[in-house]
């Protein structure tokens, strides 16, 4: 029946289809330890209680001291005629010393009055003492002492309230073989991780106290999802309680982490999708820009081609220009020649005509002296062809004609030459104009290209930017693969949960059945006669059949609740005792029930019932505080009572 650690690990490994090593790793990671052993009960008894101090700011200020000694198992009562006589304080001091921390029920001013407190306790067969001084500073100690001996060994010393609490928690958890129960609380913000909450002795010790808060079945443990159930299991002494708590907590934590991780992943995916779209757009824009740029090679080629052309054309332009300037010289010359020839021709024509005229008119007198020219002279002219006036040789008309022809030919020739040159000059001029214009254009285009070749750098830059962006795009579109390890981990944890739960269930069912039966019994003894059935469940809920009506703990009256609470503790103690298991210390402190819902009759019934039970469970120690009543007095003798009569204070 007792499953040991190895078997447990193997079961989990099988269940989660993995290796024992893997399981151990995961459990170690989440601080999950096996607790296979059923706890055997340890009994706590308060032997004595003392506290002292100085009252201030009250009607009756001054030092006080409370002492209660020789306490053993059984019933004890703290009574007063009126309220506010210090009953609660006594109970609170007990609580303070046990927990290492006062509860909020202890009034602050009272807390400040107390300067010293001490409690002797017995756990099984060992004797301990817890005490502190709280005058100017706080300090205290836990000592162990031998029975009937004054020799004491200091186990722990503490010098602050925190240290006190830690010391008590440490000590009692160890003494009662309890492990702190871990719980997981999700963060209110869904995107943030939750946190572990550890419940320890401070919470557990609530099982020993019954106050006026009836919401919880088990003592004054705050109602906390799942906690009460675990407490019940722990107090029942079942094994694997803290383990299952740890496993379930780890699962919650893991799921929470996963959820948070998932949310983060989804958020990141979304972000990445957006980013990817942005980057893609940027890439496209830049690619468009790049395309719009003329390729460097293309530009270079065109430039080379154009410069070559321009060079050739400029040379040609130079040639034409030189030709033109040559033409100018030639033109002038040709024009002159032509004009000369034309003039010469004209002159000749005119002269010939004029000559002819005058030749017709023979001079009849000497032009100089007007002396007439005689016939003889005239004849001589005809013979000698010498002019009768001046003696110069006369030329004939035939020569005249030759010369005319010559001159005409010359004129025609030079005109032809001149025309040719004029034509050539014009065409050269025209050609030059065209070439000049074309060269101008070439130059402009080259300048344009030169400017655009500055775009080469731009091209390089764009290309770089694009590859950078593409790299970024790759990064961003890389989908993170959810690690299989997470699902593995969760699988193992869930496997551990299943295995451990089933182990618990093995014990739980029987135990709970037994406890349930005893609850009915005790409740009846406390006066709940119409209670027929009770079923205590693993989550510390109690369903009832009362007068053939199915109901539950939460639905009954406070008076009935009080009975059931006490009954539950007693039932647990009894079952644990008879089975040799359980962790309840066997100490019960019942503070004054409020007068509204819980009547004096209720209290009386409970007390009578307890009186009878305490004989059956000799280790049980119960402190009951309340208003004086005959019933209580009947069952709890004065020797076992601290009483304040009429207006008295208990301390």
């Amino acid at each position: 029946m007792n499953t040991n650690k190895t078997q447990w690990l193997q079961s989990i490994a099988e269940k989660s289809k993995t290796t024992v090593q893997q399981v151990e790793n995961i459990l170690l990671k989440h601080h999950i330890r096996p607790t296979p052993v059923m706890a055997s009960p340890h009994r706590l008894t308060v032997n004595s209680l003392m506290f002292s101090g100085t009252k201030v700011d009250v009607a009756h200020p001054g030092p006080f001291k409370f002492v209660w000694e020789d306490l053993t198992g059984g019933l004890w009562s703290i009574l007063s005629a009126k309220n506010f006589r210090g009953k609660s304080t006594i109970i609170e001091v007990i609580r303070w010393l046990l927990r290492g921390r006062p509860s909020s029920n202890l009034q602050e001013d009272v807390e400040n009055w107390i300067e010293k407190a001490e409690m002797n306790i017995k756990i099984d067969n060992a004797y301990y003492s817890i005490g502190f001084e709280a005058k100017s500073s706080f300090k205290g100690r836990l000592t162990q002492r031998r029975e009937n001996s004054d020799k004491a060994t200091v186990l722990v010393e503490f010098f602050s309230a925190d240290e006190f609490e830690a010391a008590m928690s440490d000590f009692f958890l160890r003494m009662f073989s309890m492990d702190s129960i871990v719980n997981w609380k999700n963060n209110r913000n869904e995107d943030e991780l939750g946190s572990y909450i550890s419940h320890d002795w401070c919470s557990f010790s609530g099982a020993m106290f019954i106050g006026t808060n009836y919401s919880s079945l088990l003592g004054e443990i705050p109602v906390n999802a799942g906690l009460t159930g675990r407490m019940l299991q722990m107090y029942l002494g079942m094994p694997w309680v803290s383990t299952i708590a740890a496993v379930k907590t780890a699962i919650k934590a893991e799921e929470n982490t996963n959820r948070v991780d998932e949310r983060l992943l989804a958020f990141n995916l979304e972000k990445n999708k957006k980013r990817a779209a942005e980057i893609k757009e940027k890439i496209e824009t830049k690619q468009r820009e790049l395309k719009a740029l003329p390729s460097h090679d293309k530009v270079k080629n065109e430039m080379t081609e154009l410069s070559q052309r321009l060079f050739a054309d400029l040379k040609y332009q130079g040639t034409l220009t030189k030709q033109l300037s040559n033409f100018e010289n030639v033109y002038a010359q040709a024009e002159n020649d032509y004009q000369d020839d034309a003039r010469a021709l004209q002159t000749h024509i005119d002269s010939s005509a004029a000559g002819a005229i005058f030749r017709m008119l023979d001079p009849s007198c000497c032009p100089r002296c007007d002396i007439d020219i005689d016939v003889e002279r005239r004849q001589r002219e005809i013979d000698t062809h010498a002019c009768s006036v001046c003696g110069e040789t006369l030329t004939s008309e035939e020569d005249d004609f030759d010369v005319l022809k010559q001159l005409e030919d010359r004129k025609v020739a030079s005109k032809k030459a001149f025309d040719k040159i004029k034509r050539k000059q014009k065409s050269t001029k025209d050609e030059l104009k065209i070439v000049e214009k074309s060269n101008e254009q070439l130059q402009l285009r080259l300048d344009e290209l030169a400017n655009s070749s500055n775009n080469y750098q731009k091209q390089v830059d764009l290309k770089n930017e694009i590859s950078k962006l593409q790299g970024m795009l790759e990064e961003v579109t890389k989908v993170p693969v959810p690690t299989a390890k997470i699902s593995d981990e969760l699988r193992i944890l869930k496997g551990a949960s299943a295995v451990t739960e089933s182990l618990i269930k093995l014990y739980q069912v029987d135990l709970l059945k037994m406890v349930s039966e005893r609850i009915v019994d005790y409740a009846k003894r406390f006066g709940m006669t119409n209670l027929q059935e009770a079923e205590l469940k693993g989550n510390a809920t109690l369903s009832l059949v009362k007068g053939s009506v199915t109901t539950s703990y939460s639905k009954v009256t406070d008076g009935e609740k009080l009975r059931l609470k006490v009954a539950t503790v007693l039932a647990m103690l009894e079952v644990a005792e008879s089975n040799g298991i359980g962790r309840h210390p066997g100490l019960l402190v019942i503070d004054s029930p409020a007068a509204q819902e819980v009547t004096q009759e209720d209290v009386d019934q409970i007390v009578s019932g307890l009186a009878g039970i305490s004989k059956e469970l000799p280790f049980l120690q119960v402190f009951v505080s309340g208003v004086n009543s005959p019933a209580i007095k009947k069952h709890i003798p004065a020797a076992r009572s601290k009483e304040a009569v009429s207006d008295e204070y208990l301390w």
Partner: protein
Amino acid sequence: MRNAHRDAIKILYILNAGSTNFESDEFPDAVSVFKGEVRLQAFDFWIRYPDYLSLELLDLYDATGNTKYLEAVCDIVKNEEPDLRKIPMVRYLFGAYESLADALSILKSRKLIHVAGWYINPNFRDKKYLLTKKGRELCKTAVHNHPVLGWYNERAILVAEVAGNKGGMALKDIQYERADYAETKLGGIIPPVMADVLKRLDGYGNLGQS
């Protein structure tokens, strides 16, 4: 010698165009008289510088609005005359006279003209050129026989119109001023002013150039 003949004809037509009717007992065959050697020279200048003549003609057109002057300039331009018949007369404007002696001799010896005049002082003779009847008739027949010589006739008439009744010195002043202005503007000696003529013709929207 050829040129002397041509010059003789030219002078003959000048005398023909620029003279006024005249009768004399001393020279019974004289029909008209051309007064002044300087005047003769002035006429000759305009014959020999058609572009300068054109400027005067354009002025006449501006003054009178008579299109015949404008047409005359157009004809001159059209026939490329300034270059064709220009005969430099540089020394004339500097005081020296062109030697017209040969031409005049030819005319004298054919009894086409008489050169008269008296010596105002031993160096200066105030000359008058008398055109004879024979000379006048030759003017008519020469053109008929050698139409090419018609140019001299027409041109002389045109020059006579430009000169009007002005005396030689007056004409010379006009010519000198024109030449001086052109020289200032264009440099050189009696520079060609054809460009000016063309510009002015252009202004009338009437180039008539081929």
